[in-house]
């Protein structure tokens, strides 16, 4: 007890002296920190430290090429005069050997592939990694060697070594999957789990592609992360299926699992398109590997073979007949038997046998069917009543839908989606338009739409449009012609209403009425109101149990969660900064004071 007390006193005294020096100089040598570091609970002090080091690990900046592997063997150094050689001697010997090899193999020792060395300790490596433990303790060459080689890039191996010695890890979106690879190589389960979670979080932040994480989690056996990736893809499937640059990395099994999801919130035609994109990407990669294969493998045959199994997961019978005939059949990739079954179901509801769920709509898909002009079956009326739960109010007022237009001459563009006849028209400009934005959470495959003439019977007679188009777009930039009206005189009387069917293949977020010629009075003003549209509406997010207003609230909550996540990341950084200041619990107060001082200095 007396000795213990004495030691504590000495410890405190030394710590105070050293802290005073730290405050004065703001920089101390490694030797003076020795007493503090020896009381740490981890091995950070020994990281890349020659003290007690008994093995050197050789790495290069980019990792060795395969040609170098055969010549880079561990060197068992013969001990002369029973004297252990110093590290300088070892490194000099290695450099000599490398120079000889470089000369003989004519390999350039570029600055970009610089060789570096880490001083390591066998007991730390063995305690932390089962692979190192087996290698360094079995009857193999490594157990008698003072230097071994790792063929991971230096930066990645540095991260691994830091983790082995301190338990801390520094990663970002660009290297997390490489760290996962090295963790899998050296079988560090904790680090693998951490990488998996970190990469998933990075996907949520939008810095990493979910398909790459799914691919890596499957390759390295992270089952939980894999399941979370699949769930994430199902929840955010529209963007991923249509635009992910690594969509091709999915295996066929994973792809089928995704396509089988009933809550895959993507229109069926878009699902088919993404599947075709997946197969085409595979073909292009194959050509990259071996360009000569293009002569022996026919692309259509390759695509058919590649798609034969996943296509069974597409619900063709739930598509419209014109989608089948003008889009699906044109690709010539689907078996005719499947197509004939789909046609038969659309015509006469004969059940399908190939895929029993082929005729069922997926979750999140709501169909709006036209009955008569001015009815309450439209999408905009649905938005106006908060999805049939409240009395009607303009969807613009409810902030669900946004309406833009060319310059207005009289009034504002909002009544364009209202239900009250309103006297409104644009300036007399060519290509006048009204545009409806359904919001980020919805896409619509329109089947029918109606319009009302915006002029009353006395003031604006004969100004009804007769030349216009209905356009659709996903991003508001590229537009697809859905219906073209030329010399159409359906709208004639004051506040007259008319409707037209639409055979749209795809689904759209934006719908635009674009004037393409003079109106019935040979003017260029566009006089329209009470736009309504019918078709299949797909909710891109899971809000079955929530109203549109609640969805907005959920969005705000998501923002808060993002902020919390960012704060958490900052905490991790703080922990990393504390690595060098770890001390015994007895000095916790002084440590905190020191941290406060550091924060003040920062």
């Amino acid at each position: 007890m007396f000795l213990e007390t004495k030691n504590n006193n000495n410890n405190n005294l030394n710590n105070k002296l050293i802290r005073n020096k730290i405050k004065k100089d703001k920089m101390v040598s490694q030797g003076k920190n020795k007493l503090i570091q020896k009381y740490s609970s981890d091995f950070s002090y020994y990281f890349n430290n020659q003290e007690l080091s008994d093995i050197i690990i050789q790495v290069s900046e980019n990792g060795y090429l395969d040609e170098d592997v055969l010549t880079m063997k561990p060197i068992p150094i013969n001990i002369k005069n029973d004297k252990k050689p110093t590290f300088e001697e070892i490194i000099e010997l290695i450099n000599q050997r490398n120079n000889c090899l470089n000369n003989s193999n004519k390999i350039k020792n570029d600055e970009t592939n610089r060789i570096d060395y880490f001083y390591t300790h066998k007991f730390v490596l063995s305690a932390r990694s089962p692979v190192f433990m087996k290698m360094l303790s079995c009857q193999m060459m490594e157990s008698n060697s003072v230097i071994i080689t790792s063929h991971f890039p230096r930066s990645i191996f540095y991260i691994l070594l830091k983790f082995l010695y301190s338990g801390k890890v520094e990663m970002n979106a660009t290297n997390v999957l490489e760290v996962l690879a090295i963790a899998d190589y050296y079988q560090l389960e904790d680090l693998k789990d951490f990488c998996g979670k970190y990469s998933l979080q990075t996907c949520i932040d939008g810095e990493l592609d979910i398909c790459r994480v799914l691919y890596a989690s499957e390759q390295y056996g992270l089952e939980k992360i894999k399941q979370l990736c699949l769930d994430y893809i199902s929840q955010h499937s529209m963007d991923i299926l249509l635009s992910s640059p690594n969509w091709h990395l999915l295996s066929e099994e994973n792809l089928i699992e995704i396509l089988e999801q009933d809550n895959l919130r993507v229109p069926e035609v878009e699902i088919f398109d993404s599947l075709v994109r997946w197969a085409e990407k595979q073909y292009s990669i194959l050509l990259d590997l071996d360009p000569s294969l293009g002569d022996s493998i026919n692309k259509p045959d390759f695509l058919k073979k590649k798609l034969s199994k996943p296509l069974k997961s597409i619900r063709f019978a739930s598509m419209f007949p014109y989608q089948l005939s003008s889009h699906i059949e044109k690709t010539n990739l689907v078996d005719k038997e499947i197509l004939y079954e789909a046609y038969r179901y659309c015509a006469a509801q004969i059940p399908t046998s190939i895929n029993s769920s082929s005729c069922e709509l997926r979750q999140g898909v709501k169909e709006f069917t036209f009955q008569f002009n001015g009815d309450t079956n439209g999408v905009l009326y649905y938005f106006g009543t908060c999805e049939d739960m409240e009395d009607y109010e303009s969807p613009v007022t409810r902030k669900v839908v946004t309406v833009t237009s060319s310059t207005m001459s009289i009034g504002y563009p909002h009544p364009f989606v209202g239900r009250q006849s309103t006297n409104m028209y644009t300036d007399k400009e060519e290509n006048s338009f009204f545009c409806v934005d359904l919001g980020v959470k919805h896409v619509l495959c329109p089947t029918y739409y109606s319009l009302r003439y915006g002029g009353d019977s006395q003031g604006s007679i004969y100004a009804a449009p007769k030349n216009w188009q209905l356009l659709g777009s996903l991003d508001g930039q590229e537009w697809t012609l859905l219906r073209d009206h030329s010399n159409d005189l359906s709208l004639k009387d004051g506040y007259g209403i008319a409707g037209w069917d639409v055979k749209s293949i795809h689904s759209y977020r934006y719908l635009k009425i674009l004037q393409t010629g003079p109106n019935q009075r040979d003017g260029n003003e566009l006089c329209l109101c009470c736009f309504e549209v019918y078709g299949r509406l797909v909710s891109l997010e899971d809000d079955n149990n929530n109203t549109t207003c609640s969805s907005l609230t959920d969005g705000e909550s998501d923002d808060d969660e993002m902020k919390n996540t960012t704060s958490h990341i900052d905490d991790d950084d703080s922990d990393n900064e504390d690595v060098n200041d770890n001390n015994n619990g007895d000095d916790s107060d002084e440590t905190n004071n020191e941290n406060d001082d550091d924060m003040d200095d920062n």
Partner: protein
Amino acid sequence: MMNGLGRQDIDFNTIWKNIADQVYKILTGSQNVSAMFLYEDVYKLCIAQPQPYCEPLYENIKKFFEQHVDQILLIILDTKSDTISEYLKQWKLFFSGCELCNKVIFRYLNLNWINKKILDKKFGHPPDVYEIQILGLMIWKERLFFKIKDRVLKCVEILIQKDRDGELVQHQFISQFMESLIKLDSVDKDRTLYLIEYEASYLENTRQFYTRESVAFIASSGISSYMKKAETRIDEEEQRSQKYLNSSSHDKMRRLLHSILIEKHKELLQSECINYLKDEKLDEIYNMYKLLSRIEGGLAPVLETVQKYIQHVGIDAIKSIPDRNNPDPKIYVETLLKIYLQFSSIIKKSFNNDVSFITVLDLACHKIFNQNHITRNTTKSPELLAKYCDMLLKKGNKQHEEIELEEKLGQIIVLFKYVDDKDVFQKFYSKMLSRRLINGTSVSDDIEKFMITGLKQACGFEYTSKFQRMFNDITLSAETNEEFKNHLIKNSLSIGKIDFSILVLTSGSWSLHSQTSSFIVPQELTLCISAFQQYYSTQHQGRKLNWLHHLCKAEAKSFFAKKSYDFQVTNFQLGILLIFNTQESVSLEEITKFTNLNENELSRTLQSLIEAKILISKKKDQNSINNNNNNNNNNNNNGEGNNSLVDSANNMQPSSSSSSTQEYTVNSAYSNKRSKVKVSSSLQKETPLQNEETYKGIDEDRKLYLQASIVRIMKARKTMNHVSLIQEVIEHSRLRFQPNIPMIKKCIEQLIEKEYITRAEGESDRYLYAA
């Protein structure tokens, strides 16, 4: 670029060739192989894109192992002289190589592909993919071991035989072979190699060897030497099992040896027991005990033999005690003790203090103590034991030191546990303890307490509660005397020049005879008694004091002889002697008038004084003239300081009464070497009459106890038939004494008369609880 997500150009055949070359080096014991590069090669094959090469790699490993094992088989078959040595050498290399491959080189393949394959298999289906080490062992077993199994097993069998014959053999060959079988069994749930091929053969050879050896040895060397030999062989085989058999087989081996070496000869061993006991061959007994204790039921006949022998020896020893009707307690108890110690020592040395044999000794001693020819149909044993205790505990017995006394008393307590009628012991011990405490003749209070503690541990608190209370009374009496003296000083009271001391004894705790006559206290003591009585009544109201003068004693200083003497006398004797302070001679009638003793008591008291020559008895004659002698008589019989000189010449008057009256006078010619004289009292001698009274008291106590038991039982049961009631009463009183059935019947009749219980109507053998 080592990146798992990148594209890898893999030439499977080139990498596999490198792996195969290195694995061959490992399997042949080379140390110059790099683990890291091999691990990396396997890693690259496992993560190759677009298709990993896990399955081709596994198939190639399998084929490689098969070819390698086939080569080893050829090498072993080419060895003609030393098959087992070559086999073990190759096995060691192969096994350690497999271990390295499993843990280091193909670790990634095991974890990432083979384990998944195994898990993907449906439950219940045999797997077709194994970890690398298991794969290697299976190939070794099927392609090598099964082909040379008989040959190798034969070699091992020969080695074991040589070892048993005392030849020098390579022990590690056998143990390493056994371990290799266990490792090969680890890949198969049946474990057939070790259990069927090796263990069964080993046990059968052992059986044959020792069956033959044991029979031959007994025939040639006799049973005594055989016991030593068997013990040695069992130890040898125990050590051999540690080396040659797995721990799961040790019990089987042990049972086999016990069966062959002991079970088959146990009748012969057991029959020798009686001879060893008679000849006191302790070593042989110990050897026999060790052997027979190894088998189940082996010691049962020995237990019976030992018990009979102890009983026989004990009863014979007691028969040799003289004076069967009235034996010396010391001789009797020490004979019993000698028997107990003798056989206790034998059991400790030869039977390893076995609990079974201690029980046998208890049973035999119990029989000896309660049913020998001295105690025939009587309860002599506890009586003699109590008397022997009294001998040891009395003062004046200077034969023993205190430590020795404690040891002897401890031994007596051991014997006490074997006594049936413990209430008899209690009665006698209580009576003698009373006498020792009242007379102050105990050796030491500590020794007395030591004895009581031992009895308490043997029979419980209730058995010794009376003894405890007796000691308590003695302690309280000392305090009372101290307080009484302070009381006298404080109140300026005087009781004369007598040193007066009282013992206050609780009624019911002491075994005391009541006073048989009304004794008139001498006048000198009346003052003391009145003072104490008055004091005590003020301290404890409601308490009544009964004076037991026949138990009192006094010390009187006399001046009638040439020198003064201190006489230690009883109260009765004191009463008689004090008469002579006032009279020169007294007649019998006068003594009776003064003391009021009955004729019997008076006669005994006077006789003790005459025998001590303090008094002289003579007949008075008409013509006797003693005038001159009386003038010279100094008749001071009072306490210290009193010198009442009586001039007898003036009081001399010739008597004209009856001429045949006895007259008593002090003996002025009395002389004794010692100045302190203890006048013996007949009360201190045990008389046959008092002995009979003690036994009557015991019978009375037993009846009370039985009646209390019967009432307690009937109160609990309400109704009970005759036989069950008697059975239960015997059960209740067994710990105190062995009741006889006539006594129980008598108690039942008495309780019926007192209306505690009644007979059931119409059933003459059933009783009902009535109170």
